[in-house]
């Protein structure tokens, strides 16, 4: 019976405690016995949920980091409601700063490793530019920094009027965002995907992986209306970040401050943030210790495919460990 195979599916493998909570933002601390000095803070995107990095035992990046002796923390941006429509990107940066200070104080260290994923990478790059002294290593995974790319989502975003969306729907809801993601490749994502499930119903591993992923895909928080306006207008329409024109509450974000060791993880077949969205950034930052690891997977496959865990994550974790002693 199909239901027997998926009854106990609940994403999130590693145990954590909530170290701090501020309204809907939370700072999570994974339980472990760390051997390395520098803590690692994961900053996920404000689209979808961060447990993709800890989806299940076989493909948990968090577990891999913990097993390597790292002290792992994670920011959870929560589920914005109508009441959160007026959040701004600067509020996210502010909470990130709070989290970094919280960890520095708690662990008695001067700096942390900041690991951003997708739009969390954009936040991490902004943060590392503003507070370089607090960041020992910067790890960015499938990062959108240059928003002037030719992928379908970027082209749609350039022709979207975010103020109208925010005015009408107040927040860019999870359903609205999911519809956009599905329409990028509707036949594959709405038909072929489910056809392959029917074809593999006898394969328990396939079925469980499928539902773990589908659970995550449709667990979609809204983007607060004002964040959506700023993100589409200033990043997609004006591409301010890579041009050096972006500021947070009047403080200029200067990418020339990225002098700390930087690891960039890129997915070759990424249809959300293609390699073009980070190449110019990678080449231009002044960091003398920078490395780019390219996976042949897609935006999510980089994190959840078993082959990525055998190759790219082994190398990535090694890089982090060497710089966390």
């Amino acid at each position, binding site marked *: 019976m199909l239901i027997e195979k998926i009854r106990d599916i609940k994403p999130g493998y590693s145990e954590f405690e909530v170290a701090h909570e501020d309204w809907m933002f939370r700072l999570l601390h994974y339980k472990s016995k760390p051997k390395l000095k520098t803590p690692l803070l994961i900053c996920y995107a404000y689209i979808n949920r961060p447990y993709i990095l800890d989806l299940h035992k076989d493909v948990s990046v968090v577990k891999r980091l913990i097993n390597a002796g790292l002290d792992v923390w994670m920011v959870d941006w929560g589920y914005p409601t*109508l*009441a959160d429509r*007026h959040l701004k990107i600067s509020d996210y940066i*502010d909470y990130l700063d709070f989290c970094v200070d919280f960890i520095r104080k708690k662990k008695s260290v001067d700096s942390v490793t900041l690991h951003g994923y997708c739009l969390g990478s954009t936040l991490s790059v902004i943060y590392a530019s503003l507070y370089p002294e607090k960041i020992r290593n910067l790890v960015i995974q499938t990062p959108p920094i240059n928003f002037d790319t030719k992928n379908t989502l970027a082209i749609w975003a350039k022709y979207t*009027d975010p103020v*109208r*969306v925010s005015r*009408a*729907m*107040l927040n860019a809801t999870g359903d609205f965002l999911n519809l956009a993601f599905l329409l990028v490749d509707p036949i594959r994502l709405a038909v072929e995907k489910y056809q392959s499930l029917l074809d593999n119903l006898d394969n328990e591993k396939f079925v469980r992986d499928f539902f773990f992923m589908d659970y995550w895909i449709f667990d979609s928080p809204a983007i607060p209306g004002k964040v959506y306006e700023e993100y589409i207008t200033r990043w997609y329409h004006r591409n301010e970040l890579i041009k050096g024109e972006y500021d947070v509450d009047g403080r200029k974000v200067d990418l020339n401050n990225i002098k700390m060791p930087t690891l960039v993880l890129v997915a070759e077949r990424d249809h959300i943030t293609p390699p073009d969205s980070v190449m110019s950034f990678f080449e231009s930052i002044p960091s003398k210790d920078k490395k780019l690891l390219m996976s042949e997977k897609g935006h999510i496959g980089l994190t959840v495919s078993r082959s990525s865990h055998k190759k790219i994550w082994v190398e990535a974790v090694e890089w982090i460990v060497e710089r966390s002693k």
Partner: protein
Amino acid sequence: MLKNLMDYIYNYRMFFEEIAMSNPLNPFATISLLDKAFERIYDLRRKIRELEKRVEKLERGENADRKD
């Protein structure tokens, strides 16, 4: 098409909000009123956070006017 749909949703809501607000027996706050209140709450939260930071700096003996 998306622009027209968004305008339709917004104007449809505003139409009913106008009717609701013009009725003295209406006991409910509209989405627009709540939205305004939430905006003020967030502005206040930011001011409180800014003050907290300044207090922390003063307690550490730093210059509280510095932005960094």
